[in-house]
């Protein structure tokens, strides 16, 4: 017994039958009371937790896209329905719930009530979708990804895609902001477990901001090089700030074509490549999906 001083309970005489009943009843009561207290607390904190999470995500998206305070952010959630060989993709946008074949052929589309659209919590949305789409087994309908649309007035002002990629150690989760012409506005690392001092440097501006300003065509040609980062380019990237969608400095625009590739973090080529590959794939997939989902936004 290192940790708990005092006698362990087992040393005492075993309780009699009557005592046992009382003890059991007492414990049950205590448990019930505890459950009630915690349940109550749960009902108070859960919405707050979700709200806070929502606010954090929104702040980040607004920053990435440089939205005005009046702008609205609409989440678009994607689900996969798989029953046997048959696979369907379902999008929940701000307006519609679209049930589509894999090639984009519409099977069904219904309007989304306002309270679902406005709901901050993902859970509420998922539940509503599960109610609308009939599946034999709840396991057959699965959430598969999401992106956000920033809406200024009534026009989309840009998109933020959530992506994941396999880093040096585990998954790296990132947000990527894209404007309507598929040019990257910025990349933000949300979650990673890379090594401090090495792979963890992917969160640094000088690395992640290298993606900003690249068009779809640029990105397709991009590769990771191990040359040292030029000093002036690094300075520009550092100055770009965390949330780069602002009228960019002319200097930065001038420098971009001179640096068509991504400079790897010194000593962490694997992590650098992983993020680059992730961004590449996320952008490509997003473009393909946009062709289909655009009309439901």
């Amino acid at each position: 017994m290192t940790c708990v001083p005092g006698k362990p309970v087992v040393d005492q005489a075993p309780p009699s039958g009557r005592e046992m009943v009382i003890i059991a009843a007492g414990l049950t009561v205590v448990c019930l009371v505890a459950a009630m207290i915690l349940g109550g607390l749960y009902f108070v904190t859960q919405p707050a937790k979700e709200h806070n999470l929502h606010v954090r995500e929104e702040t980040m998206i607004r920053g990435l896209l440089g939205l005005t305070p009046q702008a609205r952010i609409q989440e678009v959630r994607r689900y996969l329905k798989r029953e046997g060989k048959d696979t369907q993709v379902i999008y929940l946008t701000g307006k519609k719930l679209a049930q589509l074949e894999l090639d984009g052929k519409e099977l069904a589309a219904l309007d989304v009530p306002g309270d679902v659209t406005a709901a901050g919590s993902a859970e509420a949305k998922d539940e509503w979708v599960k109610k609308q789409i009939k599946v034999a087994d709840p396991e057959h309908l699965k959430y598969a990804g999401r992106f956000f649309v920033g809406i200024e007035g009534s026009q989309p002002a840009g998109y933020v895609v959530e992506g994941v990629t396999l880093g040096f150690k585990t998954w790296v989760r990132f947000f990527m902001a894209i404007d309507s012409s598929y040019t990257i506005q910025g990349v933000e690392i949300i979650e990673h477990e890379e090594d401090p001092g090495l792979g963890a440097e992917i969160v640094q501006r000088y690395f992640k901001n290298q993606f900003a300003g690249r068009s779809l065509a640029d990105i397709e040609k991009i590769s990771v090089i191990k040359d040292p980062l030029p000093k002036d380019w690094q300075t520009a990237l550092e100055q770009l700030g965390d949330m780069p969608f602002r009228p960019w400095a002319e200097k930065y625009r001038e420098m971009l074509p001179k640096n068509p590739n991504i400079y790897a973090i010194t000593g962490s080529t694997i992590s650098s490549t992983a993020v680059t590959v992730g961004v590449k794939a996320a952008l490509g997939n997003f473009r393909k999906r946009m062709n289909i989902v655009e009309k439901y936004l």
Partner: protein
Amino acid sequence: MSEAEVTSPPTLHLSSGPHIASGRTTAQIMWMVNLSLLPALLWAWAVFGWPVLAIAASSILGCATAEYLSCLISKTESTLPDGSAVCSGLLLAYTLPPAIPVWMPFIGGLLAIVFTKAVFGGLGYNIFNVALVGRAMMMATFPVEMTTRWLTPALGNVDAVSSATVLAQIKLGGPEAVNKILATVPDGGHLWLDFFLGMRAGSVGEVSVLMIMLGAAFLLWKGIIKLYIPLSVLAGVAVMAFFSPAPTIYMLSGGIWLGAFFMATDYVTSPTTAKGQIIFGLGIGLLTGIIRNWGGYPEGICYAIMLMNILTPALNDWFRPKRLTADGVPS
């Protein structure tokens, strides 16, 4: 009868036997090891230039400072003359990239001695190889410098271009990288010869297999090391080399030889019996291969030896010397 008057003898020493000793001392062993390390340092100086001497000096200074201070604090006689701190410092320097900033080995040596040796009570009580802990600590503290500050060797004029080590290139690039490396060898040249002699990018003291062999031969001749550990380390690595796209490079680089002959054979942190030593060596070899082939480090032997160091006390318990009793079974 008496032919000489016997006066009272000088102060006689009383002790129980044996009254003679083999003549070998700990300090002698340590200094011989230091001596045997010199060829590799000379080679490094020849191909990488003066900075390697600065690195060695800095790391030795770090170790010696820590050793001196720890003796001072614990108010014991200074253990510097026994040469073990110098040996650790020298070995630590050998595991570092030749273009690392000169002050870093000092920090590494300092930390290594404090946390591996001083805290445990000095020479003989450490669990881990001091030099390797130093390297692992530096690897964790200065990851970028430890993985990128390589020099391309050149006899005479040192080419200061930094590049990744060959093993790192292969780890990243796979078979294509091997082809690229092979393409750099001029017609009529032998890749293995370059590696054997030490014409490649690598850590200060491990580039030249030949020089390490020279030092090791000296130690073998003097009976300071035995072949059980080195041979089994090499055998273990050789097994794992089958999974590599370039077995020759695999076997001749990445510090295996330095590790097998100078690090793994460290008395304090390796098992004492032949059987234990063979298992220890094989373990190092296989772990090195596992780390190289599927792990995060292209070289791996440093961590492999450290991991087996942990097992040393257990190996000493599991593999006892054979008793000279009728059944020959240790009781």
